[in-house]
């Protein structure tokens, strides 16, 4: 009898645990809906989604890398640097927006490829390799801009990407959903996706099963780079300018979202849609605190507490396994 009962309570814990942060998110969402008049308005919800668009697109790349059991801490710096290059080409060299945007994405991809090369061929630990890359990129960003803000009317031509609307829906939100649909299909329906999960699960066994692990890893880091580069372009569009510090805001929310979304640090497990939900959760935390009128100086504490709560619920079912 005693064991029987324990089993039932374990099941409840498991259900909450497996969707831990979604559960906390739901509570937070309901709380905000009742507590403020402004939260549950279509305008505010669209604002939150729009704020999540760039982080969430860059987070796809991070998620892919972490599914492989790797990590890319250069994602923020990569986003910032690619954005600066793109903005600079448009403002100071009058390159057409399409071409500059393409260069921006390609620069991101190239950096990703170098990351992949360092991790697979030079065999540097991913955190260390991308940390080095982050430092280099931050330095390059400073050197490139000389600390100055890159801005000009030429950037208005890409404003549509992050600030435009189709009907009443922000274009960036449409882009975000589009990217998530595409990568949902890639991860769940294609050989490439299946192999990413396989490698994250057991790299050696995957290699012995004839998967070309190194090539696939390089490809993944490169894709993460493309996504980071594109996010950089989106950020330039959002700010209407590019600053050398632009990428610094991104690493923390991206890593938080991917981990919160259930991608373990050892890889091989996790769903892409959970990353998206986690990004939106993060955005509602900031949004909600402003709407609630919580003083700026206590916001960090509350943000930290919400995250710890969400993560600890998430880990309950691991402990009870």
């Amino acid at each position, binding site marked *: 009898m005693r064991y029987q009962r324990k089993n039932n309570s374990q099941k409840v814990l498991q259900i909450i645990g497996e969707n831990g942060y979604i559960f906390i998110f739901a509570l937070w969402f309901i709380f905000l809906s009742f507590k403020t008049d402004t939260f549950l308005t279509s305008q505010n919800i669209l604002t939150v989604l729009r704020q999540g668009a760039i982080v969430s697109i860059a987070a796809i790349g991070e998620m892919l890398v972490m599914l492989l059991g790797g990590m890319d801490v250069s994602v923020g710096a990569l986003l910032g640097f690619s954005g600066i290059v793109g903005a600079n080409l448009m403002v100071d060299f009058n390159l057409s927006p399409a071409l500059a945007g393409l260069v921006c994405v390609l620069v991101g991809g190239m950096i990703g490829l170098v990351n992949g090369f360092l991790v697979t061929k030079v065999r540097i630990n991913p955190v260390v390799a991308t940390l080095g890359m982050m430092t280099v990129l931050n330095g390059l960003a400073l050197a490139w801009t000389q600390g100055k803000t890159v801005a000009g009317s030429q950037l208005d031509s890409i404003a549509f990407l992050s600030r435009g609307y189709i009907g009443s829906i922000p274009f960036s939100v449409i882009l975000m959903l589009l990217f998530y649909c595409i990568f949902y299909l890639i991860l769940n329906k*294609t*050989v490439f996706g299946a192999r990413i999960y396989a490698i994250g699960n057991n790299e050696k066994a995957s*290699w*012995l099963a004839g998967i070309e692990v190194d090539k696939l890893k390089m490809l993944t880091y490169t894709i993460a780079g493309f996504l980071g580069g594109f996010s950089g372009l989106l950020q330039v569009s959002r700010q209407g300018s590019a600053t050398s510090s632009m990428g610094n805001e991104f690493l923390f929310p991206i890593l938080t979202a991917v981990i919160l979304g259930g991608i373990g640090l050892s890889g091989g497990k996790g769903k892409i849609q959970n990353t998206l939900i986690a990004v939106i959760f993060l955005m509602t935390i900031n949004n909600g605190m402003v709407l609630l009128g919580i003083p700026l100086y206590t916001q960090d504490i509350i943000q930290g507490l919400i995250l710890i709560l969400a993560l600890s619920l998430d880990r309950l079912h691991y402990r009870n396994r």
Partner: protein
Amino acid sequence: MTTILSLKNISRSFPGVQALDDISLEVEQGTIHALVGANGAGKSTLMKILSGALAPDSGEMIFENAPYAPADPSAAIKDGIATIYQELNLLPTRTVTANINVGKEPNHFGILDEKTERQKAASALAQLNASYIPLQALVGNLKVGEKQIIEIAKALVGKCKLLILDEPTAALNDSEIIPLFNIIKDLKNQGVTILYVSHRLKEIFALADVVTVLCDGKLVVTSLINQVTPDILINHMTGRKKIKSAFPEKNKVIKEEVLRLEHLSSSMVFKDINLSIHRGEVIGITGLAGSGKVELGKALIGDFPINSGQVFLQGIPFKPSPAKAKSAHIGYMPEDRKKEGVLEELSVQRNISLPSLSDLTQFPGFILFNKERELAQQGVEELDIKTPSLKQIVRNLSGGNQQKVSLAKWLATNSEILLLIEPTQGIDVGVKFEIYELIHKLSAQGKTIILVSSEISEIIGLAHSIVVLFNGQIQAILDGNQTNEEEVLQATFGK
């Protein structure tokens, strides 16, 4: 005799598997009680329940006349039940003394009493006739057999009354097994009750007083050892009425050469290996541990470096790598199934389809899930893999079934050459015979099997020709139909 431990109606299930089904069992004080069963029979689950690592879904346990329901392994140890797992649980960088006392260090208000600590360690070792092990030695530097003794000493210091041993001889060589048996018998004479979990029947008949057989989570029989024979036990374990005791007959049609090794060398590990391997042939490679047989096998798949010499595949030079091997229809079943053979967290279906996935797609790389399912279903049926569904993750399967999954993925790619390294290691007899039959069937289909194994009877029973390695070199190539165990064994010793 008194009953020290009794289990009443213990059941435990995992998603999709009834691991233990209504087990009732009594263990008598001061006996060696063997627990046998095929892989997946429920031995490890029962062991985990006894050691506090797992709770039963229902049923109760009584230990020394008191209800026994350990919350965790440390509670079990406190109650007097110690478990020694196959994977030893020692601190390699600490001394023998420290390891024996770990967790229950004698102390005065937190200050370590090193003298008592040493005394306790010394007396525990003396009790095991193992005083020759220096107390100050680092455990990492000891031999496997000695490490096992340290584990037992650890249990003795913890005042254990029931000692559970899980396949204690799995990692030992012959010279280490005898002393271990003596220790176990000594402990029994000192009144310690032993629950001995194994599937090596020889050992059980040498040691045990009582034997319990599990099969598919049910208790089949508990019997005094002198009232059963190995054949009876095997029948109980496999649930079969009768088991073939002989190997299947070897295929007689051997065709053209498919693989040729010329002067293959890898620094210090194997040297100047020349071999010609033919279609339809089973070639056995054997030798002692350290003879280079496993490394030679791994080198053929690219998992071990080749320094000189060449491999020819159908006359064309071949530089091994897993990806190239796959496209050349060479399949590989590694020795370490959990780490290299299967992807434990993925489904049976995905494990089987993994090397074939790129052939199961439509543009631009979308997997055809129906075809994948068919392929996996075919593998499951062909190899009789016991799984509740194709979606089951491989970690939840028993060892033998995991091994079959590891092989099924290569059958699914239509491999022409199969490289099997220790395919029956750690597998129960039932599955062993299934694999033997399979090897026979595949070679009859014209496939080539390279079988690397240390089990000589298996090599002789299956292989057309037997390559014996000694110190990295070919000592002898023997005809599998003519040779006998003694000749092979002698060759492995370099004679």
